[in-house]
């Protein structure tokens, strides 16, 4: 049978940003997928070498524009490690709360776009966006911004939580607790949804380890690895965090793991709010001169909504000598050829949707 080569993207309705996939098709079956990346490359790592330490967070936020705070926190934590700065306990709790809210927002967006990718007319997409909007309202209340927050400071945050944030958040979490089972019922009772998701784009446990995928993609393949537990930072161990994993490694497990993670994040936010200690949450003010680093090399890994991010920084006085980022989306995207081979052309987009890549994060 002749092989047809099709160019999907960079302008295509469901490529999640500017990615180009060169797809070889034999009939309707995928023979090979070759992702071409770099359309959104901004050279953030190089830019960081010419900026002061606290000038860099705004760049970090633009890496993953769906969950900006997570990247920002990873970077600030790297600088804190380099400078040996301790984070106050209240700040740790607040950071966990905000990061988990950010994770809920990111996973909801992933859920909505996935439904679009497998051929719905924006219905679940708009539902997920509406719920994400409520979570963004909370983040706006806490930080003053809806998209790019830049609220992390060395040793804490820019400002403490507002007075009625706790009450609003608990109300929203109660709403989400009722809302998520509605999504699950709506999606999983639909036979078209389940047959488009189950057994598609399978990564087995061993393959997942070899491919180096992380985050929900890894946990859907039966590897119970989550940085929040294996390298428990902040107060995750105090909040009794348990990672969620499933065995099948197909599209359905990846979607389901994200649903379970939203529920776990809701639980984490609630218990963190209940245990929130008094104290000072404000970090250091951003000044022209920051403290000099005490560690030359610092490595921090964080569980972002998309997967494991690792930041490696070689520190010079006042600015980084080198900042290297292991972006989860980049490594997850590399698995697409393995996952899509032998599947139908229509399922390529379901696979891309469950990988949940963000091109800003892939291209850096």
């Amino acid at each position, binding site marked *: 049978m002749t092989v047809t080569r099709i160019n999907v993207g960079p302008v295509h*309705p469901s490529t999640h940003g500017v990615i180009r996939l060169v797809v070889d098709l034999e009939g309707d079956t995928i023979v090979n997928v070759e992702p071409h990346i770099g359309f959104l490359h901004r050279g953030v790592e190089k830019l960081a070498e010419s900026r002061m330490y606290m000038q860099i967070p705004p760049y970090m936020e633009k890496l993953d524009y769906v969950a900006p705070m997570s990247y920002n926190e990873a970077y600030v934590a790297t600088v804190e490690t380099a400078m040996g700065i301790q984070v106050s306990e209240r700040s740790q709790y607040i950071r966990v709360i905000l990061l988990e809210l950010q994770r809920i927002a990111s996973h909801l967006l992933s859920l909505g776009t996935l439904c679009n990718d*497998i*051929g*719905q007319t*924006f219905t679940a997409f708009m539902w997920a966006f509406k719920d994400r909007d409520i979570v963004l309202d909370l983040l706006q209340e806490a930080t003053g911004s809806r998209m790019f927050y830049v609220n992390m400071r060395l040793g804490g945050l820019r400002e403490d939580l507002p007075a009625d944030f706790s009450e609003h958040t608990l109300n929203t979490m109660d709403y989400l607790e009722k809302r998520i089972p509605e999504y699950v019922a709506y999606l999983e009772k639909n036979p078209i949804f389940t047959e488009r998701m189950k057994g598609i784009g399978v990564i087995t446990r061993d393959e997942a380890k070899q491919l180096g995928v992380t985050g929900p993609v890894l946990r859907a393949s039966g590897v119970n690895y989550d940085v929040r537990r294996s390298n428990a930072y902040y107060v995750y161990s105090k909040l009794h965090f348990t990672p969620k994993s499933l065995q099948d490694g197909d599209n359905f497990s990846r979607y389901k793991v994200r649903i379970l993670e939203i529920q776990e994040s809701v639980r984490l936010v609630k218990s963190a709010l209940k245990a929130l200690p008094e104290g000072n949450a404000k970090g250091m003010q951003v000044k022209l001169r920051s403290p000099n680093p005490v560690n030359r090399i610092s490595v921090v890994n964080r569980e972002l909504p998309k997967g494991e991010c690792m930041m490696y920084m070689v520190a010079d006085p006042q600015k980084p000598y080198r900042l290297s980022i292991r972006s989860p989306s980049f490594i997850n995207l590399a698995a697409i050829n393995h996952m899509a081979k032998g599947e139908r052309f229509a399922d390529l*987009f379901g696979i891309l949707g469950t990988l949940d890549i963000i091109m800003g994060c892939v291209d850096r």
Partner: protein
Amino acid sequence: MNLQNDLANLLNIPYWMSSTNIIHNIVGIIIYIIVISIAFSIFGYMVGWLERKLIARAQYRHGPTYVGMWGLLQNMADLIKLLSKEDVIPENADRMLFAASLPLLLALSIFIVLLLPYSPGLQAANLGFGLLIVFTIISFMPLLLFTAAFSSGNKFADISAQRSVLILLSYELPILLVVVSVAALSGSYNLAGIVASQSSSHYFALLLPIGLVVFFIAMLAEFERPPFDLREADSELIAGWLTDVSAPYYALALFLDYARMFLGSIIISILFFGGWLGPSILPPFAWIIIKALIISVFIIIVRATTFRMRIDRVLRFGWVWLIPLSLLNLIITYIVIIPFVK
């Protein structure tokens, strides 16, 4: 005079057109064609507005609100915008086929519209085999979608063309099997006769529930409605056979999308819900429109909530469910319903 009588007998032209003067007849038919075409366009347009509004409500949106009252003129604004754009026909497209497919599709739709009965006597031509002719014309439509896709020379459209042929295998046969059972039940291939026979017994929806379900699903596939919109699967094939269609042709395609849905609803209402029959509070014409609009709302709700099926699953669904069910429906019609119920 003889010729005219023959023609009138052959076509069974309604009384208000069968004047003794042949010129009057021709003028009458032309006026009828124009009036019905305009009415059909208006209802197709309204169904388009209804679809945008209803889907918006399903998605916590308002839909069109600014242009006209309740956004009624939004589709008109879109139409004017599309008509004012440059019409691009791709270089490696087959220009003739590419330009002819969509207008031909419109012509076929209007042809069917003219053959359908809207009330006793309100029909351009009451043909003895009207049912068969309508479904023959309907089965030409996928062919035109195929030529439109194949002639545009786009790879995404090529995939759409392949799907277009494959999907035929799954739903054409069930449609015809259900149509046979309807004809058997009414004892006539005449569309007005089918409606008239429903007035003496029940609506066929009650007698042939399995047939109705199969027919409804197959009509979704026939008229490219989700979950069977594989030909223009927007998340996979960009727009499938419409990928390279631009400006006036795209406006036409958009209109046809709505109009064909309404056409399908009218056909379902004639075959299963007694067409123009209803209490005499409203004129017969209003009943058929109301029934068709309700069926359209169902089709729109299906679009708002479901996901797209994959091509191999559609084939499987067609052969494992639709064809056996339509055969079962046919058997039940002949063994149970015709001898005992009717």
